[in-house]
């Protein structure tokens, strides 16, 4: 197996003291970010990105991805001990995790959560190890039309399969694509939508927008709520850990099912949030006694955590293999790649072997180290919540400002961040999804370049998107997905399917 050899090489790249220290730092920061309200995976990664500007790309991605793993682990802590999901994807964990804590089984629930997170991401990393190189070598044959078709597929599936109102997804996406176009046009070199402003000449930086949209707006949203909390403190003993692990084989069906759901929704833009709910619901539906769910069943913790982690991890597959992020956080990591001077896409596997395999190896190692770390340090992280939000909030604001400024050394970006903070707050409150915006902003220029290069190649005819079997089927699939709700409705009317939309809550 060629992949195994390369993976071993990746471990060799990774096993230096410097990278291992960065990995620990990343994990600790990540758990911190996951535990704190008002900070999540994407914000944490975006805010801490400037720290990595002076590092080499491999160390940088190892640290950033470890922040991401840490945040995934951290979200479970507050869900179980305080009934407060630190992250949206750990909402489903509260259903059975908190009742378990109330029954004095907090340590058991936490062990279950961390272990299943580990299992979920392990399955996803295995998938990445063997599938990503195959996809990327296949994608090496892609020309501009194929790439545009894949971008189109990504955008269309957001509209067609997203749970939000369709017009809101369209608004969010077209706004992102428009803002991506501001500044110098990369094909012709002429200026667009700058209105004579020298500040807009640089364009709107993706990371500045993300810091505002996720960081600042999240603080505004958090402040609206009552921040008083009451919860259990727990420490985990080795006996409890071994007890849970001994029972693990009994739940292999749940673990496997949730891993598959997670991987599928991670690669397609369903995301960790949808995955965790779906994992939970299916575990409940297939359980022998579904009544027990919600009252402290351990499967109720296993199912959503496995799915969320599998999804969060596998979202990196399309980013690595094709340069298309499967989640908001993956989009930010992609933004990072460009800052470090790497060109995302299938060539990454050929030109930057050390980087890619170092990252994949760090997924294995980061998850093992992360599991040990969270199991041993839960009491410390739980007590972070004792720090009042009035102290945490201004610190987050300062960190956001540092992050936004550092990207281009521009004061204008701090104001832009503030503006995006307000936009994010309002959008979230009226249900305009932010993920399509983020994705559109980071992919906008690449999608447009691909489109225009295909046009130049074909002499200006749209037929190029159906010029061969491959590009034709991707384009057709994209259009089908765009109109999926309509098609699904029609099929339901003819009685071919039961109509997924009609039965969904």
């Amino acid at each position: 197996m060629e992949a195994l050899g390369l993976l071993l090489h990746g471990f060799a790249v990774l096993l230096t003291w410097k990278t291992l220290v960065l990995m620990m730092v990343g994990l600790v920061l990540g758990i911190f970010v996951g535990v704190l309200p008002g900070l999540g995976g994407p914000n944490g990664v975006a805010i801490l990105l400037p720290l990595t500007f002076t590092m080499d790309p491999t160390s940088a991605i190892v640290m950033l991805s470890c922040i991401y793993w840490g945040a995934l682990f951290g979200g479970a802590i507050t869900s179980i001990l305080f009934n407060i999901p630190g992250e949206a994807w750990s909402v489903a964990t509260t259903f059975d995790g908190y009742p378990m804590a109330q029954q004095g089984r907090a340590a058991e629930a936490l062990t279950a959560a961390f272990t299943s997170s580990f299992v979920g991401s392990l399955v996803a990393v295995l998938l990445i190890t063997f599938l990503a190189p195959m996809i990327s070598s296949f994608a090496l044959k892609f020309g501009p039309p194929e790439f545009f078709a894949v971008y189109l597929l990504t955008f269309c599936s957001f509209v067609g399969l997203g749970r939000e109102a369709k017009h809101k997804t369209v608004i969010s996406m077209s706004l992102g694509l428009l803002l991506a176009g501001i500044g110098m046009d990369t094909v012709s070199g002429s200026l667009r939508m700058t209105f004579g402003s020298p500040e807009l000449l640089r364009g709107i930086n993706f990371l500045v927008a993300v810091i505002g949209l996720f960081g600042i707006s999240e603080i505004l949203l958090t402040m609206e709520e009552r921040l008083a909390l009451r919860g259990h403190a727990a420490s985990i003993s080795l006996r409890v850990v071994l007890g849970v692990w001994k029972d693990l084989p009994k739940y292999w069906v749940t673990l496997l099912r949730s891993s598959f759901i997670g991987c599928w929704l991670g690669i397609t833009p369903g995301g960790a949030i949808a995955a965790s709910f779906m994992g939970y619901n299916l575990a409940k539906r297939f359980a022998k006694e579904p009544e027990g769910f919600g009252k402290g069943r351990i499967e109720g913790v296993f199912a959503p955590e496995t799915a969320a982690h599998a999804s969060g991890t596998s979202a990196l597959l399309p980013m690595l293999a094709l340069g298309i992020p499967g989640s908001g956080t993956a989009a930010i990591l992609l933004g990072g790649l460009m800052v470090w001077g790497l060109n995302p896409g299938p060539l990454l596997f050929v030109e930057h072997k050390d980087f890619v395999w170092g990252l994949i190896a760090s997924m294995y190692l980061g998850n093992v180290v992360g599991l040990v770390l969270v199991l041993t340090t839960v009491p410390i992280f739980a007590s972070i919540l004792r720090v009042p939000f009035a102290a945490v909030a201004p610190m987050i604001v300062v960190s956001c400002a540092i992050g936004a400024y550092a990207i281009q050394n521009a004061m204008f970006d701090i104001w832009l961040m503030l503006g995006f903070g307000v936009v994010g707050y309002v959008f979230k409150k009226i249900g305009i999804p932010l993920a399509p915006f983020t994705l559109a902003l980071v992919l906008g220029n690449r999608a447009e370049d691909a489109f225009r290069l295909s046009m130049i190649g074909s002499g200006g005819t749209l037929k190029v998107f159906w010029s061969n079997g491959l590009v034709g089927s991707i384009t057709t699939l994209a259009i089908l997905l765009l109109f999926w709700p309509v098609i699904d409705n029609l099929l339901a009317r003819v009685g071919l399917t039961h109509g997924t939309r009609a039965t969904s809550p």
Partner: protein
Amino acid sequence: MSQTDIEIVVEDPTAPEDDSPSVVSSGTIEIVVCLLLLALAVTLGYDNWRTGASWDATGPEPGYFPFYLSVILAGGSLYGLIAALLARRVSSGTFVTRAQGRRVLAVFVPTSLFCLATQFLGLYVASFLLIAGFMRLVGRIALWKSLLTAFAFTAIMFVTFDVAFDVIMPKGPLEAALGR
């Protein structure tokens, strides 16, 4: 080490009341947002039309792609506007209550002042003022704790970014006086 069950309790002295009256409904905000987006779409669309949004021999001109995106954005916001206007007759949820609005402004106003202060006093002085002021005035935390936390955090940030990682932040008169 066996399982301990010490409760962690955190109070929130300035929490918003649950029965606070609504300031504005979600429907109204949706209408305003759609109108703003529509205006943005028209402005950007016009600018792209000016740049050139047609199709020449080599394919689309620079304004072509963004022009049609403006059209899509305009369409989406128009649809949203109509949907919001129609839904308004039925009922719509609260966008923000008075108590929530007050709390949001309690973060937003200091954050804006912080951005302004960064421009003139430099980031580190501004961040010291923001953290100390916010903890004292909004969080009602003891003055010495607020000042100490603010100083410690700002110092850590300075050492991490300016000294260790060479990421240079905006500076003001204080740093100039200290020779940094």
